[in-house]
């Protein structure tokens, strides 16, 4: 089980168990280098996808021990943005490799330390493993945020903790299940039957995005089922070296969602969707996983697929609402969804879509990267905010809770008066006639 951080070194390494052709698929052409945010900053081959793969292969070949500090650092310095997969001519499955490599690092104990082990045990293995625990902690945070207790005491905190406070999202007044009934049916004839994944961060910080998603689905003739027993998708664990726990959570979801009665499982969080579409890789022996991978659908992808209902023209406004679109890495690179959200935004009457330079360059959120690698994360955020400021828009739309939180934090830090929303929120407003 995953609760033991270190394992005996006599067992064959995880990278050695990984099908060698996955590692070998890299033809080291270097096309990924200019798209990699960490290579762009360091100009070091070791901080590039090609270099990381060479190191992983060296571990698999037994030429490098996985418990080396630099190997561990490079594996965690990677954002996991998967821009390299988009650039790769040879179709390398980097996502799977980096997951295995990080799990290997955890097994080797290279990064183990009392403090880190405790944080991982609490956050990855306890907090996010059961949605009830997360909601309980979120309620405590909400109370704290409303009473301003820790804000008042924050001057007494060490700097690291103060920085963490700055990036914590504001906990929503109500969570998803308070806003969404288990089954909701459209008033128009039913065209499709779908299920909704409410997510973890999305659920406690941005539950209204889930409500908006349901509204948009209802407006498009979809019956929406939101299973109460659903849990975390496992991406957080999978991306952070806890593959076994990720597998357990994936299996749980396979049990909970009634696959045979669904046209799609709708996800509105890029990170979850990207991971959930790869359950087949995660659970190669579970026949349900292959069907699951095909059933999971990002909300933008789904609407483009079924052809969204036309919108009423908006009430006349003196100026169009200028919106720019930031591409969440795990939408554009993880799922190759890039045009659908733009088309969705363009279809909203009264919205003018302004292209964001470097729209597909990571904002630095990257799961828990903004907590584990604050320096690099902030450098990327600054780069992103400069581009956003240059567009002069009032609204930034992006399809991932991590990005929403990160860019909101950036707006505050750089004093930018912008609203940061999920595209589906704008669409829901338009359907409700509120835009």
């Amino acid at each position: 089980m995953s609760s033991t951080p270190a394992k005996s070194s006599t067992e064959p390494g995880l990278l050695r168990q990984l099908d060698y052709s996955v590692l070998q698929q890299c033809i080291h052409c270097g096309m990924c280098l200019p798209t990699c945010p960490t290579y762009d900053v360091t100009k070091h081959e070791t901080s590039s996808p090609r270099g990381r793969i060479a190191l992983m292969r060296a571990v698999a070949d037994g030429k490098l021990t996985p418990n080396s500090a630099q190997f561990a650092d490079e594996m965690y310095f990677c954002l996991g943005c998967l821009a390299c997969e988009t650039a790769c001519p040879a179709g390398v499955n980097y996502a799977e490799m980096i997951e295995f490599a990080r799990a290997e690092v955890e097994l080797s104990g290279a990064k183990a330390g009392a403090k880190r082990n405790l944080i991982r045990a609490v956050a990855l293995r306890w907090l996010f493993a059961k949605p009830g625990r997360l909601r309980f902690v979120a309620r405590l945070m909400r109370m704290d945020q409303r009473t301003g207790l820790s804000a008042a005491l924050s001057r007494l905190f060490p700097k690291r903790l103060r920085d963490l406070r700055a990036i914590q999202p504001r906990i929503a007044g109500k969570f998803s299940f308070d806003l969404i009934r288990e089954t909701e049916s459209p008033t128009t004839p039913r065209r499709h039957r779908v299920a909704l994944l409410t997510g973890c961060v999305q659920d406690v910080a941005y539950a209204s995005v889930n409500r908006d998603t349901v509204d948009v689905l209802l407006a498009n003739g979809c019956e929406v089922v939101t299973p109460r027993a659903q849990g975390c998708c496992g991406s957080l664990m999978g991306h952070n070296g806890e593959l076994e726990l990720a597998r357990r959570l994936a299996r749980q979801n396979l049990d909970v969602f009634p696959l045979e009665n669904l046209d799609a499982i709708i996800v509105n969080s890029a990170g979850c969707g990207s991971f959930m579409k790869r359950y087949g890789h995660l659970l190669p022996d579970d026949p349900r996983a292959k069907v699951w991978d095909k059933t999971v659908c990002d909300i933008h992808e789904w609407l483009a697929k079924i052809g969204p209902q036309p919108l009423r023209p908006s009430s006349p406004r003196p100026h169009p609402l200028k919106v720019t679109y930031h591409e969440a890495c795990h939408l554009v690179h993880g799922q190759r969804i890039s045009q659908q959200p733009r088309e969705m935004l363009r279809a909203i009457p009264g919205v003018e879509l302004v292209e964001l330079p470097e729209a597909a360059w990571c904002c630095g959120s990257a799961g828990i990267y903004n907590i584990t690698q604050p320096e690099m994360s902030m450098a990327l955020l600054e780069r992103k905010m400069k581009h956003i400021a240059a567009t002069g828009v009032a609204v930034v739309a992006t399809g991932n809770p991590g990005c929403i939180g990160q860019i909101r934090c950036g707006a505050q830090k750089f004093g930018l008066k912008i609203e940061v929303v999920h595209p589906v929120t704008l669409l829901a407003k338009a359907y409700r006639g509120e835009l």
Partner: protein
Amino acid sequence: MSLSPDTMRRLAGIVGTPNLQYSPEERIAYSYDATAMLGRQPEAIVFVESAQQISEVLKLANADGFGVVPRGSGTNLSGGTVPGESCVVLVTVKMNRILEIDSRNLTALVQPGVLTAKIDEEAAKHGLFYPPDPGSMRISTIGGNVAENSGGLRGLKYGVTRDYVLGLEVVLPTGEILRCGTKCVKDVAGYSVKDLFIGSEGTLGVVTEILLKLVPRPVARKTVLATYDSMTDAAETVSAIIAAKIIPCTLEFLDRTTIRCVEEYAKIGLPLDAEAILLMETDGHAAVVEEEAARMIDLAKRHHARNLRIAKDLAEAEQLTTARRSAFSALARVAPTTILEDATVPRSELATMIAFIQQAAAKYKLKIGTFGHFGDGNLHPTFLCDERNKEEIERVHAAFREIFEKAIALGGTITGEHGVGLAKKEFLEQFAGKTSLDLMRALKRTLDPNHVLNPGKIFD
């Protein structure tokens, strides 16, 4: 032999401690370039920031007896940046400034670590154009392009890197710093020393500043995709176009195997039974472009093109060029090991050469997809294999040998744009002849008496 602690201390003294790396991880990450199945770990890696530092590293190399391998982004396809024994890799990517764009003299002055595509992006802001476009242009460095005399898709009309280098600053293997060339279009003072370094594959000097020629940016472009039932028809179309005194900026082809792989990968509606696809583009003044495109279409029809698609706008042009641009990606996915070659023949011999490659593939039971630059005769036979299968790799080498020998027999060359490096060393003497090789060796000895700069490349 590893470097002595004293040598390491001196290296650190020259480049600064953070710019000297030698951990096992770093040595692994600088043991390869883009060439398949070649690799050797360097003793150390230095990230240089000035010509002065490079000069001092080279002087130390001569004094302490180690090799120095200059490296940009490591996209070489002939093992040119794979370290030899007892070598230090000298990385130039931190010298990455564009120093000047001179719109009055149409020149750009750049450092060697600037990415090739960035030069053209910057030129475009001034309405200018840097034409050489090697496949790796988004990551390759201009220093590497000069060292390899890189080509690209636009070679037929616009030439290769050499045609755009006006001047250089070079650190010689013994550490002296030399400048040659000027902004003058005409400059015949003495030997053309700069030409010695262009295409020298990092064996004669390290380029530290490059003065490049720029040209006006073409305003219009027209793209046509033609499909054929026979490669000979496609080849004859190309000959007819050239004979009609049209020089297209692009004349690219795909063979049957490549067409199938591209269609499987990109699903763009290519006919699976076609023998050849020809991508033709003309650029320049709008009226001329229209007229040339019309004539090319006519010539293609007369040579039995069974299908012609003419791009109405930029978006459709993009779509048509996708077929050619996905060629390498589509092939690279098919097998674990992809070996990209660049045998080149006079364009009149192209159809013969392609047929020969297909026969070699059948004879040695190999999967070879061929695509490339029809206009300049530069072929890319791409071997799809698995390096773990020793027996298959032996067949690959046997097929290589036959293909290179045939290329030479047809008046062609063993490498059109990738260089000799390590990968083609064994074929060079047969191609160039002993006298020519002796001259190259004499030049190398004169400039690099201790054999410190990129040792073991091109010849032994």
